[in-house]
């Protein structure tokens, strides 16, 4: 993980994360970005739960291009508020989107066009605060947003970058296609015979993928279908402790800065109570051809 972040997430990079919305958020990758002290990142995503709030509070971010930044089950993002209202820990530029428009911005980049038209956002003041949106003749034109790197967490992947994810996908596909590079973190590293047995389930073309990091539990506290439930109590504790700068900094030391890696982090989480133990497998598709 450290190597992947070191190599593919430089200062000033545009980074898409949390692209499956509430599930599969690459928290472990985000925490490694914080530990390595990245600065002046632009974060791109629809909602990201509390990951963007943490990166903002840790001083890694200069701009957020997103539909929503907060804590999904708890409400406000306190670090996000401090950055926007008090420039603490530093000033933050915000490009507001809706969920639909951030998807379109990524599809525009994926299809290599300057913008895509839509009927959403007509009548919304978001049109006036985000320079990437313009209303012309009854349509809103959403300018392409091209991440330098998209980081996703998935259930399984092989070492050549074929990732299998299941459950709702949010904006994962367009975020991967739009990006210059894709970094994958996964619960399980599997043989190619597993991923290639179901090519419909492969999330991205392997030509986009530059790193595959086996990182079990790497999405905690967000859920991973078939592996982990969402840790609601962890989100609640983060919301309470991040209300003050001092509280947030203590939280950050405890869960990020003083923790070398995800394996050590997970020793302090009640993993067993979150693990999904009752399988509910799909029926395999038959790819027979002769």
């Amino acid at each position, binding site marked *: 993980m450290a190597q992947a972040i070191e190599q593919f997430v430089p200062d000033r990079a545009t980074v898409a994360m949390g692209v*499956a*919305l*509430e*599930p599969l958020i690459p928290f472990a990758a985000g925490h490694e970005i914080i530990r390595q002290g990245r600065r002046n990142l632009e974060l791109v995503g*629809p*909602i990201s*739960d509390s990951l963007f709030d943490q990166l903002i509070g840790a001083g890694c971010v200069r701009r957020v291009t*997103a*539909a*929503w*930044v*907060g804590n*999904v*089950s708890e*409400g*406000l*993002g306190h670090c*996000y*508020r401090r*950055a*926007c*209202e008090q420039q603490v820990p530093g000033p933050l530029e*915000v490009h*507001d*989107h*809706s*969920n*639909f*428009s951030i*998807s379109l911005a990524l599809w525009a980049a994926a299809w290599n066009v300057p913008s895509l038209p*839509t*009927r*959403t*956002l*007509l*009548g*919304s*003041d*978001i049109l006036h*605060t985000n320079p990437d949106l313009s209303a012309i003749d009854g*349509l809103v034109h959403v300018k392409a947003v091209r991440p330098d790197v998209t980081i996703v967490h998935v259930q399984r992947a092989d070492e050549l970058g074929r990732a299998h994810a*299941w*459950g*709702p*996908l*949010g*904006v*994962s*596909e*367009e975020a991967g296609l739009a990006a210059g590079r894709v970094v994958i973190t996964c619960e399980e590293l599997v043989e190619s015979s597993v991923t290639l047995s179901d090519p419909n389930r492969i999330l991205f073309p392997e030509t986009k993928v530059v790193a595959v990091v086996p990182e079990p539990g790497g999405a905690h506290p*967000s*859920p991973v*279908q*078939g592996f982990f*439930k*969402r840790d*609601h109590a962890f*989100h609640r504790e983060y919301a309470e402790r991040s209300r003050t700068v001092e509280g947030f900094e203590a939280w950050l030391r405890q869960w990020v800065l003083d923790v070398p890696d995800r394996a050590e982090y997970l020793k302090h989480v009640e993993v067993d109570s979150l693990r*999904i133990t009752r399988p*509910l497998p799909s029926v395999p598709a038959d790819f027979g051809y002769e």
Partner: protein
Amino acid sequence: MSKGGPAAYTAQELMVAVASREIRDGDLVFVGMRLPILAYAVARNSHAPEAHGLFEVGLMRDQPASAFLGTMGDPPNVAGALWATRMSNAMALMAQGQVDLGFIGGAEVDRFGNLNTSYVGDPNRPQVKLPGSGGGADIAILSRRWVTLMSHEPRRLVERVSFVTSPGYGDGSSGWRKRNGLLGGGPVAIITTLGVLRFPEGGGEAHLASVHPGRTVDEVLANTGWRLQVSDAVSETSAPTESELASIRLFDPEGFWTRS
């Protein structure tokens, strides 16, 4: 609390019950987060067995999840789904006008049903930075009708919102939505902790339609940031039925959403 006895139900439980009654049988409902997740479950288990739920994370369902949901993307909401897909596919249905009803949470709403979930004060130097639209603006613009739920306080129900994240009826003038190219019909109700506000057919300004049991019209007016019109036919909101409460408590057993 109800008049009938100590803590028979909470304000949130009443709001969920009222919200569930907005769902008609056969509706495709854009469910959203928090209390509406419970409202969909209640409606589906009572008067709207054919209602489908659509979730922007990329899910469609025709039955409530079988366990508690903290978010729409929690694993129980995926198991048994009719469709697990990408967000743009869910948005495609809404862009085609196929979503009958949407739910949106809000921090501030005004007399014309415009919602602010972005900035209190100057966006360049906000007093409060709220989380943003999420899918709220999309629902407000594209769904055929929508409902919002919020705590009834003067700072939340304001004369005019300073920032329109999710448009209702704009400046309240006749035909504002159509003139501005908005596809959907707009808000039909604001369900609060004190009562229910509704809008005239075709849009415009909200009026008080019902007051929750144990609350008064004066209390509602005192907690509203504009001179709220009161319907001649203002009534008392029907309390949650036993079966509505049983459904709510089945899907929120710890009271995470409705008793905290």
